[in-house]
């Protein structure tokens, strides 16, 4: 028997090493892609084109552009776009660039208008070098951006708040360089140049991540200090703290290793959600430490622990296993991680801890005071107050629709938002942009498809669009353009002769097509070797709807896709929460029969509703995926409270109360503290959990007529 124990222990201790090795060998095993979050077969993003958008950086200054250019060149990963003067190129390739629609039907009108109109009449130079009047028509065409002028080699000149700015476009390699460093560098430059404005997807991500990190760091430090104080106050020993950290670490690594083995990788969201398992695992630790310190032999302690630990484990495992039935990868990974982590903790409690020297638990005056206080106000809790909480919570669930918008889940930097709005306005002449992808086998193919789309849109619609093919025509279009001029030349000469004007006929026979890369604005346009992006004014709803009808166009809706994915997760998790609730209730019913209603169903319902109610009162009803996750934690931990409290004998009640209170305080200090976060989504999670767990614990004890037990427990601990 001993041999088997050691074997289990050896396996338990060795397995995490496999997980660590896999993570060290291939850090890419941690997935962060959106696609993995979505249900299978819904991947709509083409990596190369969406990367174009994510790489885009726009920077502007009122001051000397060349000085800023020099400073920006020093930032690692940032490549500044430079371009050649536009005018010379445009003149040289004017016959390739302009599709001369007026040449076919309206040439006479066009020429006579130029000869006799009072506000832009023909010039000597035009008669000598541009009798088709191509340049003036090219100038009339909307360029990108309409209100921007070019100041080579790197400045675009635009007006922001009635002041002239130099706008510099760049790309940032966010995959190999730190966006955080980019943000820091730009903020550093802004100290010497207050007019500096900047925007990029990478900067928003970096800012949100830094805010979240600062937030978590602040809360994490307070939580850690709180937990350490609580452990030392309770056990008067650093050893217990170290054992707890050790067992939690092993169990979590075990879970990660299992996911890596089964799925080949683990998603960052799985890791984040899996971290909540710590809350349950730490309770197993506390119960084991308390029992071991109280019992004379470790064998007796293990015997006492086995039943409640097993029941608690089975109920949690059953609830998490339901997740394996979904088609969402992250939830399936989470179910495996939960089952393995909880089982490992259970095994470690039974096979590792009894062999460790556990010190005697010291009486804790704070816990005693809390128990006595709770006992005295218990009568109040038993009254209609709980009914009100349940009813109010149900009303909150029904009346507050969930908000799955991912944009609300992160803290948006107000300064970056303002910069983004100003730069969008200056560069694109509207406040927001919607992007479409046009993937193709080659750039030429994409340009040709783009031209077909352009030709099917009205002139008014084209004003709200940036079509790369309107700036750089495909080879096919260029050849067709030249041909029109060649065919129209005899008619052109005839028209001028009619008014007694001699022209120098242009040399159209030697015109050849140019490659897209030769165009001075190539770097500014959102094009790759395998497609292009089309930008649309975000407020042009009809046009966006029209473009969605083209099968070759894919609207880039990352925010919407994320929100949809989160919404789908929330719905599935809500169903799973209800299923888990029923499964646990049925398991407890098998042990306690009808009493289950009193000892588990009502307290759990009250806890879930109370958490929601607190959320509504504090965060104006911000319901999201993470509030449902908080529900899972309340249910998991609440089951443990119920199982441990009701499986303990009358003599052990004081010790169990002591343990439960410490376990609850630990969770409140670590997870409940998240309610103080500045990030709305974290705060809603923490608040739900903090209030829900408090109600759950008091419910488990007080609904079982435990007010006397509380006071007795308090007295026992004080002795």
């Amino acid at each position, binding site marked *: 028997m001993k041999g088997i124990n050691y074997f289990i222990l050896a396996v338990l201790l060795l397995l995490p090493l496999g997980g660590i090795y896999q993570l060290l060998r291939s850090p890419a095993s941690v997935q962060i892609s959106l696609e993995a979050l979505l249900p299978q077969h819904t991947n709509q993003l083409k990596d190369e084109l969406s990367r174009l958008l994510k790489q885009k950086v726009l920077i502007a200054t009122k001051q000397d552009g060349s000085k800023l250019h020099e400073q920006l060149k020093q930032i690692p990963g940032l490549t500044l776009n430079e371009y050649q003067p536009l005018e010379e190129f445009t003149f040289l390739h004017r016959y390739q660039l302009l599709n001369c629609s007026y040449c076919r039907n309206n040439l006479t009108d066009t020429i006579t208008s130029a000869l006799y109109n*009072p506000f832009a009449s023909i010039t000597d130079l035009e008669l000598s*070098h541009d009798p088709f009047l191509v340049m003036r028509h090219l100038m009339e065409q909307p360029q990108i951006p309409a209100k921007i002028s070019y100041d080579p080699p790197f400045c675009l000149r635009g007006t922001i708040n009635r002041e002239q700015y130099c706008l510099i476009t760049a790309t940032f390699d966010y995959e190999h360089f730190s966006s955080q460093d980019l943000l820091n560098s730009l903020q550093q430059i802004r100290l010497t140049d207050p007019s500096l404005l900047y925007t990029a997807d990478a900067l928003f991500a970096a800012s949100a991540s830094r805010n979240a990190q600062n937030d978590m760091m602040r809360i994490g430090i307070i939580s850690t200090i709180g937990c350490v104080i609580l452990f030392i106050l309770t056990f008067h020993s650093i050893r217990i703290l170290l054992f707890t950290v050790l067992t939690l670490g092993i169990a979590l690594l075990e879970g990660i290793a299992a996911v890596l083995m089964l799925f080949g990788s683990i998603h960052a969201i799985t890791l984040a959600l899996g971290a909540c398992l710590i809350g349950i695992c730490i309770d197993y630790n506390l119960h084991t430490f308390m029992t071991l310190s109280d019992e004379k032999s470790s064998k007796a302690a293990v015997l006492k622990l086995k039943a409640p630990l097993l029941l608690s484990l089975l109920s949690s495992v059953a609830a998490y296993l339901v997740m394996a039935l979904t088609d969402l990868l992250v939830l399936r990974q989470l179910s495996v991680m939960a089952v393995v982590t909880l089982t490992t903790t259970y095994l470690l409690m039974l096979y590792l801890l009894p062999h460790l020297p556990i010190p005697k638990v010291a009486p804790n005056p704070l816990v005693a005071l809390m128990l006595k206080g709770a006992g005295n106000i218990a009568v109040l809790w038993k009254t209609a107050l709980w009914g009100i909480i349940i009813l109010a919570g149900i009303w909150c669930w029904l009346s507050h629709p969930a908000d799955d918008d991912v944009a609300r889940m992160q803290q948006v930097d107000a300064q970056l938002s303002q910069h983004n709005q100003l730069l969008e306005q200056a560069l694109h002449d509207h406040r927001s942009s919607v992007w479409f992808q046009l993937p193709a086998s080659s750039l030429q193919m994409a340009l040709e498809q783009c031209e077909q789309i352009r030709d099917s849109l009205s002139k008014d619609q084209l004003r709200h669009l940036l079509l790369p093919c309107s700036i750089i025509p495909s080879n096919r279009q260029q050849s067709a353009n030249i041909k029109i001029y060649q065919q129209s030349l005899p008619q052109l000469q005839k028209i001028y002769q009619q008014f007694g*004007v001699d022209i120098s006929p242009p040399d159209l026979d030697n015109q050849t097509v140019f490659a897209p890369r030769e165009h001075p604005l190539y770097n500014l346009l959102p094009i790759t070797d395998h497609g292009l992006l089309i930008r649309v004014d975000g407020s042009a709803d009809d046009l966006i709807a029209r473009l969605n009808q083209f099968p070759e166009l894919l609207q880039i809706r990352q925010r919407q896709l994320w929100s949809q994915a989160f919404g789908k997760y929330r719905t599935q998790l809500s169903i799973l929460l209800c299923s888990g609730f029923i499964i646990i209730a049925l398991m407890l019913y098998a042990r306690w029969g009808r009493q289950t209603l009193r000892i588990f169903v009502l307290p759990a319902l009250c806890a879930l509703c109370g958490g929601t109610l607190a959320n509504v009162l504090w965060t104006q009803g911000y319901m999201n995926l993470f509030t449902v996750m908080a529900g899972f934690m309340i249910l998991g931990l609440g089951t443990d409270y119920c199982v441990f409290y009701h499986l303990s004998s009358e003599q052990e009640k004081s010790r169990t109360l002591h343990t439960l209170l410490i376990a609850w305080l630990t969770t409140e200090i670590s997870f409940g503290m998240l309610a103080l976060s500045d990030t709305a989504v974290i705060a809603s999670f923490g608040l739900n959990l903090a209030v829900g767990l408090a109600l759950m614990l008091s419910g488990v004890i007080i609904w079982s007529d435990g007010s006397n037990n509380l006071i007795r427990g308090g007295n026992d601990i004080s002795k």
Partner: protein
Amino acid sequence: MTATRRHMLCLTFLALTTLWCGPISGLTPAGFELDNQSIIDATYQMEKYLAARKLKLVSHGRARISAQRGICWQVTDPVRKTWFIHQGVVSDLSSTEGDTTADTPAFMTQGFMALLLGDVSQISPDYNLRINQDEQGNTKLYLRPQDPKLTQIIDLISIHIVRGYVQNIRVVEKSGSSTSLTFDQFKTDKLNDLDLLQDCRDKVNK
């Protein structure tokens, strides 16, 4: 074609678009004194002299100008053309394809309107302004560009105002080419409920 000449051509286009923009502060309109309900009706002669070819293009026509409702500009000789200019949009009413809209920048047509009204406060600060006024109250405005790019193309713009009406506008280019617009037979009418666009369209075929 040399690079310099290519640049000159580009600068010509630049000049065309930057000729009329921005206010000269402290000056009030000195030309047609139009209230919101008045319309100026005048005939004109335009002489476009192309120095390189020693060619003179002469045209005649009629202009109806309202500060609020736009300009109806008709060429009657040697071709028949009619444009309607309102709120920065130029429509060619005589086009064989029906009404067509030319993508002329709004500031350009507004600048043209300012020139017709002799409203120099609307004309670019890129010009040095000299004003000569005689005893009869007639005014001559001389605008010389001071922007280096413009000075390569435009030599002088002169506006001659007689008895409150712009009688002549002349743009002289550095190349020696010039455009001269001379107005005659002024008539001021009350607009009342006249739809200038419809009126202009009616006159296309007359």
